[in-house]
């Protein structure tokens, strides 16, 4: 009963705060829309007295009371001076904060547990003081970056985040605030750069032996998982015109004899099998571990400049049996063999987003 009553009490409150929150969010979205570049102005600066500001006001009232009770004009004058200082500090605070430009790219990606930094570029036309920034979402545990003195021109600082969970995460807005000139006021803005991170699974080292013991009887592909000597010597692949310095042993004598030109033979290790990295092949029962292995392999393959494809769907062989819908997902989850940095990024992104 007690808990129920408490719940009943608690619920509407939550509802109300939720209502206000969502309304506030909507208002913010209208007021400060998502952009890569923001300039601070009347529209997006919020300015309000800090706690010290409130304490200061109380103090001014105290001085006023002192002056009134002692009928002392000088103390009264002091209290008036302090009160009007409050107002001019507000204006100074505002002008110190306005007209700064902030620029930041929305996307960052990296492995889990790596520190990712969002660079934010400040462009200023005059000197600004005490500019602080952090992610509005305090659960991100990001740092508060402080620029003590923001010189004329541009400069950069970065906000760092770190995540241990793979996937795509939206980071929300960035709070930028300043308490410059006396700390009585907090000028604040919450800018939306549309920041998000894509966190790849943290790579986990995989050795030949491991793969062997847990892999299905899929004998052909073993060596390729090994990291050394990746350009293989097994199967003939193509003829390329001879480049000076290449081994004579590789010369395609047949073609040379026919007078078709000087070619050398190139080989590659069993591409048919090995160009596909399959999720289902990974030696683990746990999905996250499998993805971690894949992440490692993708890295290795890219550094050794191999061509590979990524197959996350288990059912690629039986694609004839599957329905249309799964087919489409399969094509999304399977990445055709290729190589290079972009390919690596695409593969890792696929891993990160894998459900």
């Amino acid at each position, binding site marked *: 009963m007690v808990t129920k009553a408490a719940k009943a009490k608690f619920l509407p409150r939550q509802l109300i705060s939720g209502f206000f929150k969502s309304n506030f969010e909507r208002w913010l979205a209208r007021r400060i829309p998502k952009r890569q570049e923001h300039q601070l102005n009347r529209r997006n600066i919020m300015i309000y007295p800090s706690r010290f500001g409130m304490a200061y006001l109380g*103090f001014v009232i105290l001085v006023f009371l002192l002056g009134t009770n002692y009928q002392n004009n000088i*103390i009264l004058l002091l209290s008036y*001076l302090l*009160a009007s200082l409050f107002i001019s500090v507000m204006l100074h605070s505002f002008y110190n904060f306005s007209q700064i430009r902030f620029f930041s790219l929305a996307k960052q990606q990296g492995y889990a547990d790596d520190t990712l930094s969002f660079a934010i570029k400040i462009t200023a036309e005059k000197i600004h003081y005490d500019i602080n920034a952090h992610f509005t979402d305090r659960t991100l545990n990001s740092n508060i970056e402080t620029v003590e*003195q923001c010189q004329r021109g541009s400069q950069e600082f970065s906000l760092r985040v770190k995540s*241990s*969970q793979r996937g795509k995460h939206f980071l929300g807005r960035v709070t930028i605030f300043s308490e*410059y000139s006396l700390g009585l006021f907090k000028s604040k803005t919450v800018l939306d750069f549309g920041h998000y991170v894509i966190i790849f699974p943290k790579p986990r080292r995989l050795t030949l032996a491991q793969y062997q013991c847990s892999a299905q009887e899929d004998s052909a592909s073993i060596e390729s998982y090994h990291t050394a000597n990746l350009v293989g010597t097994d199967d003939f692949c193509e003829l390329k015109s001879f480049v000076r310095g290449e081994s004579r042993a590789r010369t395609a004598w047949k073609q040379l004899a026919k007078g078709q030109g000087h070619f050398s033979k190139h080989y590659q290790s069993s591409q048919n099998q090995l160009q596909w990295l399959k999720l289902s092949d990974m030696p683990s029962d746990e999905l996250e571990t499998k993805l971690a292995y894949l992440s490692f392999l993708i890295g290795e393959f890219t550094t050794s400049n191999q061509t590979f494809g990524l197959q996350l769907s288990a059912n690629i062989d039986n694609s004839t049996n599957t329905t249309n819908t799964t087919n489409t997902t399969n094509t999304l989850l399977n990445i055709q063999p290729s190589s290079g940095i972009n390919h690596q990024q695409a593969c890792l992104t696929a891993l990160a987003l894998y459900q």
Partner: protein
Amino acid sequence: MIFFNTKVNQQSWGIKQKASSSFYLSRKNSWLLWLCQCLNVAVIGLELSTWMLGIISLALAWQAHLLHQSRDSVRNKKQLKTAKQPGPRQGTRQSKHANNNQNKPVSPIILAVFALLGCLAIAITAKQVGILVSMLHLLCFSYVLKAFEVRSRRDFYQLLLLGLFVLAASLIFRQDLTATLIILTLLVLNLAVLHQLFSYQRKFVANVKVIIMLLTQSALLAVVLFLVFPRLSPFWQVPSAKSAATGLSDTVKPGDIANLTRSTKLAFRADFGQQAIPAYSQLYWRAMVLEDYDGRQWTRQKRFASNKIPGAKIKAFSFDVSKTEVSPLTYQVVAEPSYQKYLFALAPAVAIGDSSGIKAQAGYTFNSTKMLSQAKSYQLSSYLTAPFGVELSQKSKMANLSYPKNSNPRLEQLALQLQHNYVDVMSRAQAVLTLINKENYAYTLQPPLLDNNSLDQFFFDTQAGFCVHYASAFTFLMRASGIPARMVTGYLGGEYNGINDSQQADNTGHLSIYQYDAHAWSEIWIEGKGWLRIDPTSAVDPQRVDSGWSTRLLQEQSALNNDLLSLYQMKNIKWLSALRLQFDALDYQWTRWVIGFNNKQQYDLFKHWFGKMASWKLALIMAVSLVVTMAILMLFLHLLNQPKKKSRSLTKWQRIYQKSLTQLAKQGLDKPVAMTVNDFSKQVRRECPELAIVFTRLSASYNCLCYQPLSAAKQEELTLAMQHQYQHFIHAMKRSA
């Protein structure tokens, strides 16, 4: 090399930075804060007890010691760090953290014990020193103790506000211009220390400048607030300031006033407005009438105070204006805080204008109803030559004739002799003065000490004294010879400060009366003439009465005083004297308009500006003026902060090109900012073919001038050519139109 991470699912976000609000003050800032504390306490130091000052200076010294220690540790740390990290910025960061860590806080237990002991001491002495002073003790004590535990920003803020409050509290005791300027300077310093927190890369001087600018901008609003904000009456009773009373006292012994004259403090000021100031020898500022003599000292009579009937009796004391034909002299007196009640007047006088808080006393003096803890201003009308106190009650007569028999036998004998020789009262008094003048009497600030304040000894043996000696002896002689007489203390003369233009009779100055102008004289009562002022000092040192202190007296005073700048030097070094007078004039205006600004003056000001009005109109004016001031402030700051337009002056060819562009714009051809000159000329060719040739030529020359390195002569030539082309262009425009 097998790695198997056991923790697979780590849900939370990383960077477990400790959310320690790493607050630290840079060393420079800490020292500045310390300095601020010292100065703030010094301002109020005079009001504190000696033991409290001792404790405070002990605490401050301890603080300084801690700061000094932290420097050594930082230095050691720095040396270690620099070996590891040569980066300058990182280095400072590190050392600051080191500072934070190294600065071992004083153990809270020690602090608590210290605080407890201090509070106990304050509580014990509270009865003795009064509430206000013990409150101040508490304030200052907490102010210096708080400095030991500045760990977070909040502590720093608290410390700062406490400091500002100490400054405000010190204004309870002193409000003159000097004190106000000192407080203002300290306010700037305190705020600059606060400001340093937010821009510590800047120099402290730059921060001071910012604060001065901020305060200047705030000043306008503050002044408007001061003028229009309603003056409220006190909300509750507060303990009044009990400072050491200055000036004259209720009892006078021979030698008292001579001590007072060592002080160069201001006693009061008098402003006669446009009227001519009376001669120096007429300026007998009456403060107290002393009628009781016990053989040692003169005291105020208590009897009138004890059994007075309100109304009728008080009327009897005050001067009746209707019976005199003497034209009044109206003036304003601004009395400095003396922590006493008596006020100053040229007898006989009546209070005019706002006479609240002023009470006429017996003996034609005035008292304030409250102790003077602030400057008090009041207006009086004096009838200098009119006789006063013509009717004397029997009781009063008796009081003014009584003296302790056999207290000064030789004087009594002399008095009997005089009574016998001179029947006429006036000639009897004159005889005494002549006696003093003829005999070898000396007027000195250092009279020889008298046994038991014996007047006999003074009059017949030492024959050297200051005004009280002569006035006492004279009054005693008069009483002994059967003439009602009494002693009056007050001030004589005053220093005129202002332009005294005798031709235009336009005085714009005031009299400043200092403590060294303190004086004592006597009054005798004559049937039909009333009380008559007789100053025996005039018989011994006429210059004192006619124009002020003689050079000899000034030198004597300088010898007695060990001030940095003695009065003698002040009066004799010309530029110093001029400076002093200037400052005095400024201080007078300050006292009059700022310290003395009250409800009535505020109301008068409004009436002067806006005419008579209802209270709602007043409120409206207040509100409107505040809003307008704020708007002005905002506008001013807005203009100040507007991004500066590049005020680079355009060259001649640029101006020509701009002119042609505006001509084209009139035709409906606008050049987008991003478009190049060549592209635009192409567009012109397309849209108005008749202008094509002239404009293309113009554009070509413009391009040449802008982008080709040309010699000055060539440039000029081309500019001239461009001017011609522009004229052709205008012609073509006209033709096409």
